[in-house]
């Protein structure tokens, strides 16, 4: 069960999460992730072949809303946290 997580895997996960890690951090996180996985692995010791899959922690289903309009937010408030704005759009560095 040692070294379950390679440095490459850490880098892949970090890039998916848009995180930049220093070399030291990569190593530390690899160790930490490995120990977390090891801990969770314990659950596999239980025989769950007769347990129905759980879809949600809450045992309720079918919580809906009707298709009724609600007031949206004022644009000023919408854009209040925008990194950059012209009062109409969120402005971001160009993609593609």
């Amino acid at each position, binding site marked *: 069960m040692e070294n379950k997580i390679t440095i490459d895997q850490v880098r892949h996960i970090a890039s998916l999460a848009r995180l930049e890690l220093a070399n030291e951090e990569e190593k530390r996180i690899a160790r930490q992730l490995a120990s977390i996985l090891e801990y969770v692995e314990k659950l596999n010791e239980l025989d769950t072949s007769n347990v129905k899959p759980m*879809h*949600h922690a809450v045992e309720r289903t*079918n919580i809906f809303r009707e*298709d009724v309009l609600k007031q949206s*937010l004022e644009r000023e408030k919408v854009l209040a946290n925008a990194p950059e704005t012209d009062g109409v759009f969120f402005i*971001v*560095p*160009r993609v593609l």
Partner: protein
Amino acid sequence: MNYEAVIGLEVHIQLLTNTKMFCGCSTKFGMPPNTNVCPICLGMPGVLPVPNKKAIEFAIRLALATNCTISPVNQFARKNYFYPDLPKNYQISQYELPIAENGWLEIETKNGARKIGIVRIHMEEDAGKLIHDENKPLSYVDFNRAGVPLLEIVSQPDIRTPEEATSYLKTLRDIVVYLDICDGNMEEGSFRCDANISVRPIGQKELGVKTELKNINSFKNIQKALEFEIRRQTALLERGEEVIQETRLWDPAKGITVGMRTKEEAHDYRYFPDPDLVPIAIDKSWIEEIEKTLPELPGPKRKRFVQQYKLPEYDAEVLTSDKNLANFFEEVVSLFPKPKMVSNWIMSELLRKLNEEGCSISDSTISASNLAELLELIDDQTISGKIAKSVFEEMYETGKRASTIVEEKGLKQVTDADFLEKVVSEVIKENPKEVEKYLKGAEKVIGFFVGQVMKKTQGKANPRLVNELLRNKLKEIKNDSV
């Protein structure tokens, strides 16, 4: 070597709900940017999405109409990726338990009807819209569309030609429009299509390497994009080269597909069940309740039109291509029960006029009862077919009733034999040369005489009666001259 294409289509349809999938913001198109948004669809911390019941019902409608198995337990999942049009950095979608699976659609092809399998239908939310700056390295984000409910319909790779792909899309679009769950507008993006396509030598079992085509926004373009991609992939294989698995964009201006320069890092969306949303249980009674409200679908309606109204396949297809048009036809027939005549007038006159003006049947200024009245006037010979066409034009322009126009303009057909006989005699007297020709055996001259009589009566003379009177009169002259 001969190659065949293997095509699978992924269609996204925008649902015609009033509000978004998980919040009460409006789905209305064309509103000022960032005005139809709230903390939920902006993905602000601490908010709780709640599914729109109507969107679920729309999904069940489509599942039933496409012969799918509906999943008794449904779950929403988070599809994680970063893009500026995605406010939460995940899209709420479905992964392991989509609402419907294993369906099929019947499409018309030149070799007859074919079934195209449907892998799955799942619910998800739309992303926002990005506008790229022409000059500066900036993109502008409008989140009005973020959170609008979508259904994604994934076909089996059962499609073999661009024509079949178009037929599948048209069939699917007709269905969603009939179901009143989507407006089917490809140009505005409420009906979107991506295509997976590969080619392989005919007879080969294994699939070739596929590409995914995006950015196709009309039926014409889907056909062209697939044709281009088949040529491109076939040429590569024939040269002994390989097709690269990639996403390609269709460029309608150049008529080619272009590979997207993206890092082909395998997609890793890390789907997991969305803890904010409890499962949706769909029981039999809910399905049955919705099934009762399903309209007759285009395919069955087309077959019924052929049987019930004895219409040619082509007429039935045109008339049922639009639910409102089909309803209009049936309304006219209920008032004037000569289906083929009704169909002829709708197809040759009404649709021509509507197409000219870029309108649909719901914009028609001629109501079903007005059209029925016009046809009645032709049928009982109150007006001639020719006059009817000009009456039709005027009805379309003014919205007036046929009988009103006929009355106002004095267009009633002249069937008074005594009066017409006088006109016929006049015409014969005025055209001795033509009479001469006729006597020498030029039967065709009769057409000239009919024309002259029509002229004198402003087109109102009953043509059959005029013909009969002319022939009698000319026969008399012939007998006298012998």
